[in-house]
């Protein structure tokens, strides 16, 4: 049952990701991206990363994806949001490059003897993440909050209406 569900989620992720990069309509791309992000959240669940799965759904699907759809809406007429793709030779060349990269990375990955620790059944990661964020990774946490503030101000400045 678990293996079946895992295969289902894996196929969902790959198929929708393929759709994201090949769909002609930008809105279809955005909807497919939602499938990919949900699928990755499902994979996090299989990896015992419950907090990260929730964060993935809230921030990626609820935040970034809505932002991207707003970007589509503000720059194009929504019914005719046609993605202009590169010319056919360029796409073919990119496909060849990506295919060989895929083959190379896969063979490298299957041939590497990865270090394996023992698998433990964890019960919830929220307490551990919360504690280490406010002790060991406190500086990184604060830097991330400053980064978000700067991004907020920068985006508001960049997209403001020009006066004069």
């Amino acid at each position: 049952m678990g293996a079946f569900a895992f295969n289902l989620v894996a196929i969902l992720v790959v198929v929708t990701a393929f759709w994201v990069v090949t769909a002609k309509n930008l809105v279809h791309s955005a909807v497919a991206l939602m499938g990919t992000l949900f699928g990755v959240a499902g994979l996090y669940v299989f990896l015992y990363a419950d907090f990260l799965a929730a964060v993935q759904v809230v921030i990626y699907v609820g935040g970034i994806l809505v932002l991207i759809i707003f970007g589509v809406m503000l720059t194009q007429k929504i019914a005719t949001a046609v993605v202009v793709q590169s010319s056919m030779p360029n796409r073919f060349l990119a496909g060849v490059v990506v295919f060989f990269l895929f083959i190379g990375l896969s063979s490298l990955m299957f041939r590497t003897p990865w270090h394996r620790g023992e698998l433990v059944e964890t019960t919830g990661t929220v307490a551990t993440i919360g504690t280490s964020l406010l002790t060991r990774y406190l500086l990184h946490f604060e830097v991330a909050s400053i980064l978000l503030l700067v991004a907020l101000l920068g985006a508001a400045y960049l997209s403001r209406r020009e006066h004069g």
Partner: protein
Amino acid sequence: MDSLQSYLFISITLFCLGLYGVMTRRNGVAVLMGIELILNAANLNFVAFNRFGGLSDQLPGHIFALFVIVMAAAEAVVALAIIINLYKTFHTVNVDEAHEMKG
């Protein structure tokens, strides 16, 4: 579902598809979607190595993935502001048509 390789294989596939999207799309928003796929592939790697590398007491991979998500949010906001500016200036969102500064 209990082997590191299956997660890494999904991650490699996501990365390659994202790279293909970044290379072939001309629309700025679609390029951004490709970047999101690549970041998701990286995050999946972090979490998979955290689980299968025996790091379940400290969870450094989860923390790193969390910071990557924060970074992705900031990046998406700024990129969309730039794309909207591009649209206002050039009336196009195709990244290869904005070549004003090309020599």
